[in-house]
């Protein structure tokens, strides 16, 4: 297979000077991120740093206050509705909850994007495509189940099959490992890795599960307090001397990140 040279140098997603505020709180304060093509890039940070918000910004679901996000050369927030929805068809998103449509069966959930976007596709092809994707996530046997009969891990795998059914160029994973037992965690890790390599996809992985993410990511961005605190390959990150990175990667209670949420003076609460 021949590798396109430009694809290895030009980032698929280019974020420049991104500023985003929610009510009074600054979530991102001018961050720059490049997502390399064909790689798994992880975006990590403590809970509440806006990792999911970043995915929504990339998908054009939220408007930034300043800065730009380009996906495959298009500025997401300057696209009109039609081109934006077309671009979204080329992006798959795996939500934390799976976000399956509750009144459709597993089969219909996975078939849903096909039916909506390719209405003339013959039923036999739809069926084959859906079963193939379900086979890839190991759930071909669950094809007739309804979402409420699935475990959390299964729902996430069905959602993964649905996100891939249109063969996206970019997959966004929102906390794929949260709340999974060790086995489904391992299954998901392997799946994400295999899918990325097999279909020349680009993946963005938002997570705070340090060990799992360090194992499968090609490149990492650590975000906190609206800033990129560090970025690099897992080896580079592991070798970073920054106390913040050290605290985050090793889960230490003491360090630049405080354990206590800001509170009024203790005198008010404990003493009278």
């Amino acid at each position: 297979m021949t590798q396109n040279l430009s694809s290895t140098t030009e980032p698929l997603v280019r974020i420049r000077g991104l500023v985003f505020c929610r009510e009074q709180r600054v979530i991102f304060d001018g961050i720059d991120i490049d997502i390399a093509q064909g790689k798994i890039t992880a975006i990590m940070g403590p809970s509440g740093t806006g990792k999911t918000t970043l995915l929504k910004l990339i998908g054009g679901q939220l408007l930034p206050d300043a800065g730009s996000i380009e996906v495959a050369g298009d500025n997401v927030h300057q696209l009109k509705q039609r081109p934006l929805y077309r671009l979204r068809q080329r992006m798959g998103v795996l939500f934390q909850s799976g976000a399956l449509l509750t009144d459709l069966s597993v089969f219909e959930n996975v078939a849903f994007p096909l039916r909506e976007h390719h209405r003339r596709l013959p039923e036999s092809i739809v069926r084959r495509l859906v079963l193939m994707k379900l086979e890839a996530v190991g759930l071909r046997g669950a094809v007739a189940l309804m979402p409420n009969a699935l475990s959390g891990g299964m729902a996430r795998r069905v959602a993964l099959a649905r996100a891939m059914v249109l063969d996206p160029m970019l997959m966004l994973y929102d906390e794929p490992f949260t709340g999974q037992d060790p086995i489904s965690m391992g299954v998901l890790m392997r799946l994400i890795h295999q899918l990325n390599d097999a279909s020349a996809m680009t993946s963005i992985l938002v997570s705070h599960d340090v060990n799992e993410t360090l194992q499968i990511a090609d490149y990492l961005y650590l975000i906190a307090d609206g800033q990129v605190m560090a970025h690099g390959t897992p080896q580079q990150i592991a070798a970073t001397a920054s106390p913040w990175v050290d605290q985050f990667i090793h889960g230490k209670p003491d360090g630049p990140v405080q354990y206590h949420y800001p509170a009024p003076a203790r005198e008010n609460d404990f003493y009278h």
Partner: protein
Amino acid sequence: MGYIIDEKMTTSPPMLKLDHISPQHVELIISGTWSLYQPSPELDPLIQPLTAAPPAQLSVNCDALARWDTTVLAVVVALSRLCQQHNIQFETAGLPAGLKALLVMAEQGGRAATAEPKHPTPSFLHRSGLDFIDLARSTGEMMAFLGEGMLALLRLLQGRAQFSRADLWLIIQDSGADALPIVSLVSFLVGMILAYIGDQQLAQFGARIYVADLVALAMVIQMGALITAIVMAGRTGAAFAAQLGTMQVNEEIDALRTLGIAPMEYLVLPRMLALILMTPLLAIYANVLGMLGGAMVGTLVGGLNLNAYLGATQAVLAWNHIAQGLISATVYGAIIAASGCLRGLQCGRNAQAVGQATTSAVVTAIVFIVLAAAVLTILFDAVGLS
């Protein structure tokens, strides 16, 4: 010593006592069993004797302390603070090891203290102002949303909308046919009430036959559409808000967007279309039932001849009356669907928010139905329909 497991194990009552060993050294004796299950002594009676002539050192004697839980910690923490304020050296050596560890945790520093936000009770004027701003904002939102809905409808007519016909039929059945019983009941009763009140007044002038005119005109021009709309707002508008709100909570709407499907076309359009089609039909039905209710009272209570009643009804009704009612019903249908879908899509990410969205959808719908009724009456008058 240790935590209390069974409240029945308590034996000696908890006690606090100051022991003045010397003018410079005071000892606090903590004794007995301290538990959340029984009242523990307050620190307050000790503050005066301790601070009147502050000693240099305060130590603690826990020799007679039996079992304890954090109630004793609350006293120790307050005491430690008191000592700090009066420059008394607080000697913690006498505390049991567990209590010492808990004291350290309780006194551990957090981040710099920030002032607590104040929530003063807003005045009546303040609240009315906020409510007015709220109303103005929802008017803007509703207008924008209805406009977006109309654009989506245009795309549907051009055959470019992501639209599920199966969903449309389901929603039509759910909001149309399934609403018949409640619409029947309410409109029949309203027709009866109108006729009854009209009969009492008109009987004084011997003009009982005009009950038929009164009921027919009131139902067809305004009441039929209004009753249907209010029933639909409570029944279907609330259901739309709950459906879309739950989808919002489950991230299903986000999922649709990321799959390249516009919720406006896929979710809102069928609902809007269903209500725009169904509300006028239900209103016609409500008109008929209302007039039947009126006929029942007119004949049974008013002693009118049924044929005379129906003849009078037929004579008074004209096409312009029916048109007014149907146009109103169509507008109300669009308002109900828009407010239900708008509040559903605006729903927050938790279960409580779904409840709020549902309530808000009904309130928004009813407010705008009444506003629209007023505006439509003026418009009908202006174009000569009335």
